[in-house]
């Protein structure tokens, strides 16, 4: 067995199997359980890293290994290429970060065995999702990460909000899942296989129904939109913030919520096997992605301006940033049919990783603040600069990176996306996405001011605020360091992904979108500064007051209200249906039945129940005796001559 084959299998099998041992170990020693989880996360990290060299040195060809699974239907397998290895490494790295961070953040919580069990189950499933060789396996893991997400959001299962949010998230993502399922079914019909290789070969042969493939592509997009919290299905991510913050960082910022990005980039790679198909997808499919992306980027950023929940800001920020990635993917093939030449495809994945770093950092720091203050409401914060200096310093890095200021990671990754969107040539999309970058800066400053600047609130003065413990700060510091250096890694990542990138590192400073971008940050900064430091024109008052604009933002564009309305309607319909059922299918037959039985033998049914059990025994004895007699007769008539 080659090293990479071994690693590719065990990198997801080990955490899945290890998860079963967590309850066993947890019974004996909590400490051992915690170390066990960290050790497993470490092993996963090593295995993930061991996949890198062969992919890097390879020609960009995918390597697959398969074993028998459901005979005549599908084989289980792993699929190693730069895309899957990039995701695997990211998940493995974050798994380790969160496993360590949880030791501090979750300390003293009830039900930690369950927490760590689900954590390992999630790690295994998430890696399984990105490294699967076929669509059935991928879909199973796709659903399993949703399951883990549900269980972890409902971790505090006694809180009504947690339960409610868990159910909401699971059901909303299921809507995307059924679309993905339909897409898989169509592909299976067309190519007779679930494996990526099989589909690629089928596309290469050129014998496929283009219209059906376009429909399939849209169904895949539906799955990605729901999973990655994109417009119009983005509202679940805000609800998902009921999860412990460590979980939010891992699932709802760094990894699970990116599954949709993985799915789309994977399928763009597959579709690119047939250039004719890419051409067929260029008029509608790709623009739909980029429209969804820019709209979500804009909507998410505006919502980040209003929410008072510190995790809410980060959630909407995630929604918005994934919108950027979608915009990158949507414009990826605007001028080419070859993924290796595509800026957008690479930019999206590059930004995916930098987003994982800065948003993960944001969540880890927010976790420390929530841990210290016991609240998520930013109105109850303020002036934390002095009490939490380290958190403050790290948060500056997070803010700067999120806003995309040079020379940190997002400057390069977001810059590439902006270039790609501009190159694609839609003016409105370009305006929207630049507006989103400006608003991003504004909501960052707003959050920063509310939490760290100004006077401490009454809530804070009542409690003793302490800096986050080391075990929580060290993982955050590692992420902060990566935020700083990740951008410079761009050429190496491009060569790892086998992308021929026209844009050099220095080019990022001189390209056309950078001055526009930096110019736009100025008004955003001034506006945020003016409103939060000088209280210019009472913007804060307007934002707190009641007017159509705040109504729209406070209700998240009324999209959730629409969904709740639908859910209410279904419930109402079901209740009406129940009354109908009771009247027509329960009451009438009962009435007829009792009339008949009364006519036949008055009171028969009731006497049987109320009567002494002895009479019952006689009844049954008679029935059984009769039955045995019949059976004896059968056995006699059968005879054993035939044997």
């Amino acid at each position, binding site marked *: 067995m080659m090293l990479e084959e071994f690693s590719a299998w065990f990198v997801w099998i080990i955490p899945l199997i290890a998860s079963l041992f967590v309850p066993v170990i947890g019974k004996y020693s909590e400490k051992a359980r915690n170390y066990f989880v960290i050790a497993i996360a470490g092993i996963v990290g090593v295995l993930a890293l061991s996949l890198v060299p062969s992919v890097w040195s390879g020609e960009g060809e995918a390597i697959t290994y398969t074993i028998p699974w459901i005979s005549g239907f599908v084989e289980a397998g792993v699929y190693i290429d730069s895309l899957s290895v990039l995701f695997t490494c990211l998940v493995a790295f974050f798994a380790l970060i969160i496993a360590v961070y949880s030791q501090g953040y979750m300390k003293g919580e009830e039900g930690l065995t369950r927490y760590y069990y689900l954590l390992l189950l999630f790690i295994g499933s998430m890696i399984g999702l990105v490294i699967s060789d076929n669509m059935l396996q991928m879909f199973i893991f796709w659903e399993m990460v949703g399951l883990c997400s549900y269980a972890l959001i409902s971790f505090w299962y006694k809180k009504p909000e947690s339960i409610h949010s868990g159910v909401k998230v699971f059901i909303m993502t299921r809507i995307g899942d059924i679309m993905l399922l339909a897409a898989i079914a169509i592909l299976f019909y067309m190519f007779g296989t679930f494996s990526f290789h099989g589909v690629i070969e089928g596309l290469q042969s050129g014998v496929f129904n283009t219209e059906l493939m376009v429909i399939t592509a849209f169904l895949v997009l539906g799955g990605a939109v729901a999973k990655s919290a994109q417009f119009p299905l983005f509202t679940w991510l805000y609800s998902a913030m009921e999860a412990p913050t460590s979980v939010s960082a891992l699932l709802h910022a760094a990894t699970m919520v990116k599954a949709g990005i993985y799915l789309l980039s994977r399928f763009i790679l597959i579709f690119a096997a047939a250039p004719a198909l890419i051409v067929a997808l260029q008029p509608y499919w790709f623009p739909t992605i980029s429209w969804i992306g820019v709209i979500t980027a804009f909507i998410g950023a505006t919502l980040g301006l209003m929410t008072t929940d510190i995790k809410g800001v980060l959630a909407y920020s995630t929604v918005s940033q994934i919108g950027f990635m979608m915009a990158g993917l949507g414009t990826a093939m605007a001028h080419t049919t070859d993924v290796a030449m595509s800026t957008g495809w690479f930019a999206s994945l590059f930004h995916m990783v930098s987003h994982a770093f800065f948003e993960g950092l944001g969540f880890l720091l927010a976790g420390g603040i929530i841990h210290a203050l016991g609240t998520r409401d930013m109105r109850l914060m303020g002036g934390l600069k002095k009490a939490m200096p380290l958190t403050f310093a790290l948060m500056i890095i997070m803010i700067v990176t999120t806003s995309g200021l040079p020379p940190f990671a997002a400057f390069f990754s977001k810059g590439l996306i902006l270039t790609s969107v501009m190159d694609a040539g839609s003016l409105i999309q370009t305006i929207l996405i630049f507006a989103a970058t400006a608003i991003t800066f504004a909501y960052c400053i707003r959050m920063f001011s509310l939490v760290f600047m100004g006077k401490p609130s009454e809530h804070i003065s009542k409690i003793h605020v302490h800096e986050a413990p080391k075990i929580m700060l060290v993982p955050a510091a590692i992420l902060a360091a990566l935020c700083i250096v990740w951008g410079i890694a761009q050429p190496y990542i491009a060569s790892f992904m086998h992308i021929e990138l026209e844009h050099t590192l220095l080019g990022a400073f001189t390209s056309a979108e950078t001055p526009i971008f930096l110019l736009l940050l100025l008004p955003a900064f001034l506006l945020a500064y003016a409103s939060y430091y000088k209280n210019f024109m009472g913007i804060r008052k307007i934002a707190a007051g009641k007017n159509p604009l705040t109504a729209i933002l406070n209700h998240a564009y009324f999209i959730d209200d629409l969904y709740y309305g639908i859910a209410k309607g279904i419930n109402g319909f079901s209740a009406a249906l129940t009354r109908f059922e009771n009247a027509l299918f329960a009451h009438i037959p009962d009435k007829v039945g009792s009339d008949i039985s009364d006519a036949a033998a008055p009171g028969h049914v009731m006497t049987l*129940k109320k009567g002494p*059990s002895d009479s019952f025994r006689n009844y049954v004895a008679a*029935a059984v005796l009769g039955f045995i007699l019949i059976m004896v007769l059968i056995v006699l008539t059968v005879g054993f001559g035939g044997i």
Partner: protein
Amino acid sequence: MSLPLLLSVFAIPTISIPFVYLAGKKSTKAAAGFVAAIALINIALLAMTIPAIQGADHFYKETYEWIPQLSGTEFALYVDGISVSIAMISLVLIFVAALYSVNYMAGKKNLPVYYALLCMLSVGLIGVFLTSNMILFYFCWELMLVPAYFIVGEWGYRNSYKSALKLFIFTHAGAVFVLLGIGATYWLTGTTDMLSAQGILATAANSEIAKWILIALTGGFAVKMAVFPVHMWLPDAHSEAPAPMSALLSGVIISAGAYAILRLSFGMVFPSVGLSFGTYFLYALSIIGVVTAFFGSLLSLVANDIKRVIAYSSIAHMGYTMFGLSLFPAALASGNPVALASPIALAIVGTVLHIITHAASKGLFFLTAGGVMHQTEKRDIREMGGLASKMPFSTVSGMIAALSIAGAPPLACFISEFFIFMGAFQIIQSPGGAFYIIPTALMLIATVFSLAYSLRFISKVFFGQFKEEQGAVQVAHDAHGSQSQPEAPVTESHGHRIVDIPNYMKAALAILVVLVVLIGIYPTFFVQLIQTVTFGAVA
């Protein structure tokens, strides 16, 4: 093969019935053990037929002389890949039910009779799957009903005899149509053997009568499946029955209807009805399936009785099964054999697999709910909540059951539904399949509803705050003395601490949990067996 394997499967439980009763007189545990042991032996015996099924013939058959006067009616015992799989899962459920009953039924009256009836039920239930003779089939079909009636009636809750009577009358009425269909087939073909009847029907020119036979048989079996609009017996019977019986009823007895449709409607009559009638017949089935799935899911979404939630979900899942059956390749109607190993028949493989996975999952679901009722002595899910901290074992098994029912991977029901949907798209692309686009889309949407009611169940029963005060309220209400009902569950132990279910029940649930996860991850064993079957090949 000269060992009387299938005859033993029949004979051992039959002969044992009085001994189970006698053992029960000494100790109820012994009776339960007896029933469980018989089930295990039968599983082993059935397993011994598998090599023959996987061999060249793809079936295993034993025939004995029986009623030669009735045109050579033989005691024909016949299993193929489909029947052996379903029979085995049924036996697993019998085994689990017996084990579970040790704790669950403890303290009830007349337990020796209960176990004897359970043993008798297993004869009828297994017999249905094991025969190729229509008379023997009908005999076993009715035989299931007698012990079911008594068990639901005597050991059930509330108006149990009324529910039992409903169960009996409805399914018996269905059976009358089945008898009509069987009689007509005999009159038309002069044989009571399903396999030879199929061959004769295919060559006979009486396809008009064959259509009526098809409708009568399918209609009769549909009553057993409790599809809309003949479902009304199910919610009462399943929710009033004692938990082990609910598990058997919902798990396998209603699915026996689906099996019978496959075996008799499709296996025997369908090849001779002609393509156009066959196609419309399948369309009708698919509409029934979709309506049933939505009807059951929506009612389950608002039901408040813990067992009614699950009972309605059974109706919904019979909708899935019916939809799966409707995806039968219509080519069979014009006499072309359909091998289940071919991709076009993927949905049928999925349907049979769904019968199996649903049996395990729904059995687990009902047994868990029974455990919750047993320990909390409540049945309204609005009064429950927070049981996760009190009953961790039941919570895990309940969640696995509910999520499997919701079709979440890697649990069992997901993989069967996946097969059905994959098959549906194969059918859509085949001639005349465009009709299925809308039903398939609707069934996909129905899975969202099944997730919704499953999550609602979990949230209401296991999550949330534990409502200790509820018992006090109940007692206080009773103290006013105005409306205390004798049938209402006893309220004595409300003040007591609620603990997890006892060990035998745990063991029973554990078996099904393992099975649900195992089939979900590795369904290959059953898939291979099912795929050996070919419909419409003239024997």
